[in-house]
């Protein structure tokens, strides 16, 4: 029995509306409700970036919400997956080219799963999240690989800390 394979059964989602019309947002809310009940898959709407695995973004990114979007993404610890919900989050949709819109979410943060539709149906959102789980598992493995590599590197003395780097830079500058 491989314990690691159970990890993907616990995706905690974070939802951010980057400037959409609320249509997809209420469908995400409907996903939590008894008819669709995404808690079956172990999902919780945490509302806290530091404890989330999956970022659900809806809406085209407006100028004022772009920095918040990037900041939320940066606050989430790896491994993390981004799902863009709806046509306008994926490409800008009908809002593409409007003066205060920047277009799709993938202009700012890497998107792993695109969910289509205007507005997305709850079934589509659930399908998107389930697809994201496989990506999440892959990313977890990659992260573990990189941690392993880093550990070996430390052993061989290649890893430099900040002071070493500063020491190396000084002679070059002077």
């Amino acid at each position, binding site marked *: 029995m491989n314990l690691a394979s159970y990890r993907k059964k616990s995706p905690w989602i974070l939802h951010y509306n980057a400037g959409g019309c609320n249509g997809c947002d209420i469908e995400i809310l409907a996903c939590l409700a008894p008819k669709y009940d995404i808690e079956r898959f172990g999902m919780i709407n945490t509302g806290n970036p530091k404890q989330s695995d999956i970022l659900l973004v809806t809406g085209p990114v407006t*100028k*004022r919400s772009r920095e918040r979007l990037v900041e939320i993404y940066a606050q989430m610890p790896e491994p993390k997956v981004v799902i863009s919900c709806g046509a306008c989050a994926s490409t800008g949709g009908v809002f593409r080219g409007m*003066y*205060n819109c920047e277009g799709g979410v993938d202009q700012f943060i890497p998107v792993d799963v695109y969910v289509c539709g205007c507005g997305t149906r709850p079934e589509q959102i659930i399908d998107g999240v389930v697809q994201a789980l496989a990506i999440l598992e892959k990313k977890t493995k990659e992260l573990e690989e990189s941690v392993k590599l880093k550990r070996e590197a430390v052993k061989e003395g290649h890893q430099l800390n900040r002071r070493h780097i500063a020491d190396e830079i000084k002679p070059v500058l002077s």
Partner: protein
Amino acid sequence: MKKIETNLADLKKDIGAFYKPELHHFIVMNAVQTGEKMELQWFFSDYAFPCETTCFYALISPGEEVPSIKDIVASAWVAEAELVDLMNIKVESTAKGFVLEPDFESGPLLKKK
């Protein structure tokens, strides 16, 4: 829709004489470009049936400062702040930046020549 013409100097007096909080409510403030000049509109509506929408309008030339009706209609600040950003109008004691980010060009709704 009933349209009443006014000008910037008489604006506060006209609206102050017309507006009764228990009879009317303020809807929104709007601006339309008509050639060189800009037509500013203030929309009011009755509470009664059948209700009538009343529109005060004034023509202004670019760069003119518009008096604020905040002391007559307390909720007008939202509409005024929006027009300041979107139409690049100067309104008395209203700063920019409520709608748009500071780095964005002001007056995106103005027709480009």
